[in-house]
């Protein structure tokens, strides 16, 4: 075949013609393809330029949130309760590390690195990018920081990052009141304003930290940064600074709080002190207490287990949530009800043989004093805490009268304090029993309400609130933790409004005097149940002791046998206020299984009042920092 074709003659002209035609066709195809290319480029660069410019801008610029600094918390005198301290975290940037294993080994010789730390580190390492720091150790102390810093040039890729983290300089003091912050959990995350919390890792969980989260948190800031494809920030384009959270000044007085906590010592219990003139909570104690600093960086499971399973229940805020029978501390209130509702003569005496009996009931209701108080009027009944007198009075009043009168003092209702989780106690009535127990009311149950037992339960906060109300002869204020808000350090304090509640209506103002003088007699009278604390008392105090039989919150089946004896002892209670003439402090205290109110509770209250009234004689209501001296209180 090959030689056949070779024999054909080459026709140069024809070949050139074919070639030129083909080149022309190729040229046309090239032209056509160029038009296709150009129209695509016109489409991209001219028609849709805006669209692609936007995409490119979005690619390049990203918005990074900047966390605001959380507001500080002070007590009424400017003592710091919650602050933000630089906390040092050791991070490793894998990109800069030559030999990770060696680096980790070197580091472990400088600072302690636990297996758990390493586990978290390796877990994180898989999630993060090579130029991002991966935390290895949190909360380095100054010495550890120094040791690593000295070696830093030999440890490339190891950085120590300082960030602010919450710290409670007073430790356990007032922990229940102040509360704590901890890592935001998923449930909270769903409820939060995602944008404002985009840089925030911690949130107030309990106490004031929780209630005033919005004020303390502040407003998030943003920076627009240019990033490359891996998300590495190259530089900042613009910045909107965050607005720091506001500082809070609490009504709490740290010294009073400390005295109260020391007073309770090893005992469980709770104390609430209120300024009756405005509802300011001067002290809120719940013992035992915990260290809030444990929660900030994630409490270790061992610590948490210890706290949450301890039979003493240190995480439980007894002042707010502990519901105790008020015992004899209810008597002044019942007494007032008698004067008001039954127009009872305070001078009228009844006979107290040491027991009380209802008609058609064989049961004897005993007085705490075996042989009775003999002839007893209201003054004596309160001063000496005669049970029989109040069995009789309660019976005469009837449960519904008692219940509706006590409701004026806020019993059976939440006080509305600015803390979450408050419980309302029980102020029983026929209706209450029908609804909750589905049973009719028995007369005998009315009798023991007269001495603050039975169904009646109150929280220490309610008792303090009611005591404040009685001391002010019916004037009531909502209890407040928060005293003032400060926009930033050194700016003036803006005091919060006091919140007056409905006054307690009385028919005769004299009835107040009657009850109050009886309460004064409890402390100052010759036979007063709290006369023990009147020695050397430099002001006049009024009060009422109480001893409640234990069926309260301390009842717990898990108690060990040897502890039962202690745990079945009565709760000791005391309510009181001072100075008598011009009350500035009202206190309610319960000492769980403390025994008698007069001996176990009253002395602690005296110490608290001494601290508040005497040691701070020069005490100003407005903290020194309040430059323009305004105060709504």
């Amino acid at each position, binding site marked *: 075949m090959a030689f056949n074709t070779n024999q054909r003659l080459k026709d140069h002209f024809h*070949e050139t013609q074919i070639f030129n035609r*083909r080149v022309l066709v190729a040229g046309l195809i090239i032209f056509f393809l160029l038009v296709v290319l150009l129209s695509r480029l016109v489409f991209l660069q001219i028609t849709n330029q805006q669209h692609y410019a936007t995409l490119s801008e979005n690619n390049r610029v990203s918005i990074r949130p900047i966390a605001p600094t959380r507001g500080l918390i002070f007590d009424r005198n400017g003592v710091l309760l919650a602050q933000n301290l630089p906390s040092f975290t050791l991070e490793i940037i894998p990109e800069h590390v030559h030999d990770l294993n060696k680096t980790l080994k070197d580091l472990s010789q400088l600072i302690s690195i636990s297996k758990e730390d390493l586990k978290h580190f390796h877990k994180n390492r898989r999630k993060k990018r090579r130029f991002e720091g991966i935390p290895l150790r949190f909360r380095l102390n100054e010495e550890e920081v120094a040791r690593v810093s000295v070696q830093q040039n030999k440890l490339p890729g190891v950085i120590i990052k300082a960030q602010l983290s919450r710290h409670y300089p007073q430790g356990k003091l007032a922990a229940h009141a102040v509360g704590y912050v901890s890592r935001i959990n998923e449930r909270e995350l769903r409820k939060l304003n995602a944008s404002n919390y985009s840089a925030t890792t911690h949130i107030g969980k309990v106490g004031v930290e929780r209630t005033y989260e919005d004020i303390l948190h502040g407003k998030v800031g943003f920076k627009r940064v240019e990033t490359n494809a891996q998300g590495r920030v190259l530089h900042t384009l613009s910045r909107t600074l965050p607005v720091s959270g506001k500082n809070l000044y609490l009504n709490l007085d740290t010294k009073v709080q400390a005295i109260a906590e020391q007073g309770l010592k090893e005992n469980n219990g709770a104390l609430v002190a209120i300024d009756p003139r405005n509802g300011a909570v001067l002290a809120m104690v719940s013992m035992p207490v915990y260290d809030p600093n444990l929660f900030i960086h994630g409490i270790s499971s061992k610590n948490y287990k210890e706290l949450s399973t301890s039979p003493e229940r240190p995480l439980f805020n007894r002042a707010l949530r502990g519901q105790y029978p008020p015992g004899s501390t209810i008597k002044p209130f019942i007494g007032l009800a008698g004067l008001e509702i039954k127009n009872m003569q305070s001078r009228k005496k009844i006979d107290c043989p040491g027991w009380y009996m209802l008609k058609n009931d064989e049961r004897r209701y005993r007085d705490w004093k075996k042989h009775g108080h003999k002839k007893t009027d209201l003054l004596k009944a309160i001063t000496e805490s005669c049970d029989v007198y109040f069995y009789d009075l309660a019976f005469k009043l009837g449960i519904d009268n008692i219940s509706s009168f006590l409701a004026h003092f806020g019993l059976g209702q939440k006080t509305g304090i600015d803390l979450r989780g408050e419980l309302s106690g029980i102020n029983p009535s026929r209706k209450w029993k029908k609804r909750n127990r589905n049973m009719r009311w028995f007369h005998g149950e009315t009798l023991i309400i007269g001495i603050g037992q039975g169904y009646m339960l109150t929280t220490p906060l309610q008792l303090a609130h009611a005591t404040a109300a009685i001391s002010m002869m019916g004037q009531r204020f909502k209890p407040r933790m928060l005293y003032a808000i400060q926009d930033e350090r050194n700016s003036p304090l803006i005091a919060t409004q006091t919140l007056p509640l409905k006054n307690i209506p009385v028919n005769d103002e004299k009835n107040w005097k009657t009850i109050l003088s009886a309460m004064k007699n409890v402390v100052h009278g010759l036979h007063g149940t709290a006369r023990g604390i009147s020695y050397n008392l430099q002001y006049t105090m009024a009060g009422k002791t109480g001893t409640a039989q234990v069926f309260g919150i301390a009842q717990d089946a898990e108690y060990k046998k040897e502890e039962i004896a202690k745990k079945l002892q009565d709760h000791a209670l005391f309510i009181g206020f001072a100075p008598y003439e011009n009350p500035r402090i009202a206190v309610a205290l319960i000492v769980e299984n403390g025994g008698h109110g007069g001996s176990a509770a009253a002395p602690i209250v005296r110490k608290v009042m001494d601290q508040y009234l005497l040691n701070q004689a020069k005490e100003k209501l407005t903290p020194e920092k309040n430059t323009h001296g305004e105060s709504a209180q």
Partner: protein
Amino acid sequence: MNPQSGLSPMDFREENRLSTGRRLLYRFHIDLPLWIGIMLLAAMGMVVLYSAGNQSLELLNRQFVRLFIAFIVMIAVAQIHPNTLKRWAPWIFGIGLLMLIAVLIFGEVSKGAQRWLNLGLFRFQPSELMKIAVPVMAAWYLAEVPLPPRRGRLFIATIIVIVPTLLIAKQPDLGTSLLIASSGFFVLLLAGLGWKLILGVITLMAASAPLFWNYLLHDYQRQRILTFINPETDPLGSGYHIIQSTIAIGSGGIYGKGWLNGTQSHLDFLPERSTDFVFAVFSEEFGFLGILLLLALYIAVISRGIIIAVNAQDTFSRLVAGSLTLTFFVYVFVNIGMVSGILPVVGLPLPLISYGGTSMVTIMAAFGVLMSIQTHRKLVSA
């Protein structure tokens, strides 16, 4: 060029009319218009690479060295008389074919493909040699007979093209095998391949596409084509290149973001930005007007190549020059088409602009062949 001289051999009179400088260039067998076009494109390439390489002088330096080597190769090739090339054609082709087979057996694997032959002193990519050897061989084979060629000759010529194409596709190197197939096809086309046959082959290829898809393509090649059809299906994976490069081109607009100001390029959003995707950097920074200038330069170079082909004195030279020039256009078209998202991603550089050595040398060698064809003309008739 004097229109009267037309296709006639250039005589000494004509040479005398040229300036001294151009005469000197002719001595060294350098075609001035082609050379200027190449140099302008290479210069533009350096400008873009300076930006694409984040102002790395080192990168620029290496590109410059390559360019210089490629330039030497071009001059060297230009000294070879087309007749010599024609004599060598079967030998070059034969050696190239053997080396392709050697690559498949002993070749070095790099980035998942077996393309390199280690010759001790340096590594060598035989497929690059074939970019020139295949059209030269096909032209040699067809130029022996009067054109248009008959069926038998066409069949053998087709085999000459298809065997190296398949060997290279097997490496796998889809881009190069595509180039080699088209360079061979261009020889056949310019030799006067019948239109009916061309249509028939296209129909046959379309019909055999599913076979091709299932048995010849590698997974990653199939993925590339799928991604090309809809890049959004895998925006972070294989679609990422195309999405980011169209953003870069589109955001450039008419005037561009300015030299060194391309955000897509400088913030690492654009992958392969100094090699295959350099056109995206160029478009982002210089905009549509810049593209028009770039395309104008390419068209000038291609036009000059076609003029050289048309002016060539014998069939062999004509076919070789025409095929190499059209292949150069395929380079440009496929690269820009892929970067702007109208063609699937095949790994082809933008000629004379993209960073990278091997293909640069081959392209310049091809220009050397063109220059040789142009500047050896007077001797043909003499």
